[in-house]
């Protein structure tokens, strides 16, 4: 946990976001300090992915009020690639297929683009290959998958593992994992959770969006939030997740109504 006077990794204040004129986030507040893992749970359609996309910089979402800072700097004025280079990573709930772009080329282009933006030297091919192969092996991703087009023909679980591979390579300061557990079998869940835990450090933060306690058994959060109808309606410790699993969201949906 960070010192009180240290600037927060992520600070979201009174965030209002609308999509196609429809208000989805309605005054959301959230602070993530370095070293913290936050879980966000909440009913379908409550705005969890919207929050994730707005943080990553997807256009089409209009921020109508409020703001977000990343290490004290305004985040919302930055382009998605600039946010990534500053250390923000979103593992997509639905990773996209990119026909014709080989996974290996994609990974290398992404890593080197971020390094370039940060004024770091590009990785040499042997260094890059060594790193990719090492990380891929830890996630049980075979070489053949890396040669194929990004996510094309990958199973649901393979796509999720590919997201975590990208995260492992890019070593973000803040990782937002949007339902990374959905579509994973029990063994894959363990592998993915190990990958995530490996990245946990006093310097990094994480936001884990999930519907299920079983992911939080592996990635134990420091703080759990309930997002309902565009607002965080309750915040607690890791025991809150168990309570939700037992009782559902009905109390919060009424409360928020």
């Amino acid at each position, binding site marked *: 946990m960070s010192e009180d006077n240290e600037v927060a990794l992520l600070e979201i204040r009174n965030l209002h976001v609308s999509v196609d004129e429809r208000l989805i986030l309605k005054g959301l507040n959230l602070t993530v300090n370095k070293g913290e893992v936050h879980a966000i749970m909440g009913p379908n359609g409550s705005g969890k992915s919207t929050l994730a996309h707005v943080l990553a*910089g997807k256009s*089409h979402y209009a921020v109508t009020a409020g703001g977000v800072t990343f290490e004290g700097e305004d985040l919302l004025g930055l*382009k998605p*690639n600039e946010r*990534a280079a500053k250390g923000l990573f979103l593992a997509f709930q639905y990773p996209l297929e990119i026909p014709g*772009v080989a996974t290996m080329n994609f990974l290398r282009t*992404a890593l080197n683009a971020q390094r370039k933006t940060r004024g770091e030297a590009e990785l040499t091919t042997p260094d890059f290959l060594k790193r990719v192969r090492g990380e891929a092996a830890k996630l049980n991703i075979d070489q053949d998958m890396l040669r194929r087009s990004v996510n094309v023909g990958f199973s649901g679980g393979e796509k999720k593992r590919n997201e975590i591979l990208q995260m492992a390579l890019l070593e973000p300061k803040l990782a937002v994992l949007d339902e990374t557990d959905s579509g994973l079998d029990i063994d894959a869940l363990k592998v993915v959770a190990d990958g995530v835990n490996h990245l946990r450090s006093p310097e990094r933060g994480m936001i884990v969006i999930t519907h299920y306690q079983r992911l939080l058994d592996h990635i134990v959060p420091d703080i759990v939030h309930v997002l309902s109808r565009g607002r965080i309606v309750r915040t607690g410790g890791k025991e809150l997740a168990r309570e939700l699993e037992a009782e559902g969201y009905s109390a919060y949906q009424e409360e928020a109504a």
Partner: protein
Amino acid sequence: MPPPARNCRASPRGATRPSGASPRAACAHLAALGARRLVVVDGHFDLALSDLDALEAGLSIGSLARALADGERNVLARVGAQTGADGDPAYALNTAFMRDGVVITLADGAIVERPIHLAFVHAASSPRAVFARSLITIGAGAKVMIVESHEGAPASDYQVNNATDFAVGARAEVAHLKLTGEAANALHVATQVATIGAQARYSSFTFNVGGALVRNQMFVRCAGEGSTVDLGGVSLLRQRQHADNTLVLDHAFGGCVSREMFKVVLADSSRGVFQGKIIVRPHAQKTDARMMSQALLLSPDAEADNKPELEIFADDVQCGHGATAGAIDADLKFYLMARGIPEAQAEALLIQAFAGEAVETIAHAGLREIVMDAVIAWLKAR
């Protein structure tokens, strides 16, 4: 006689690289593949600049002007023969005005490993019209790779009406690649006529980047059973460029397989046209023909026109066509950018992937690389 030019600097009379395209890079590539370079300058086959040494067994190369002057019967018969392009005004104009070109003949069974590079160079310092006709005859069971490149001095004004006629014998194997560079102001009309014998394999890929106005027309006829025809193309256009790929594929005999994949990338206020007609004649049963054309529009001012046509007169056939036109997928671009890739680079990756799907249909790795490098060069200059 000066020694034949084997390097790529030998573009005569100061003809240098036109915009965007990279015929010079392609030329270096071809040289590395050991290509035999034949140079046609302003419509005249320049023997002195061409590599005519140590012709492979069964290969003969000559000038059309010479053959016409000598009244060579085979050549006169070919020039006068009926083709699928009969009635086409551009081809008729070529027939009327052409005086020279390259005549290539492969004897039955001749296997020519070195690609043959036909370099059409437009070097004229004053505006002019250029007409050339090349006749390529491939004997039964023969095998060859033919690459055409067309380029011109950057600031020059000219128009080209070029025709290349292929007669492909039974069981022969021909891979053809046409690289259209040309100067920014050039008008380029090219007609490709091909008659494909039984069980032959014919592939032709057209890459367009240069010229103000380019029309590539292809008249391909399956003239025997069981042949395989692969036609493909990529056009990369910007500013006010216009490129048109028009093809007529005539399945006159049954049991032939044809595949077409044409892609066009349109920036600024450029315009791309694709017209593809597949004819399946009444007795051409078991024809398997599939055509796809796709346009990627990078600007709201760009225009893509697509006209696929199927004329099917046989009942036991598989034929299909598809056409799409659209902008860069915003979600894919966001995904790439969310990984740290700047917008322009993300777009370049997606454009390259789009064009790459067609480029992948080129079977020969060396030729594929030439085209892919040219795509990348165009994207870098964008």
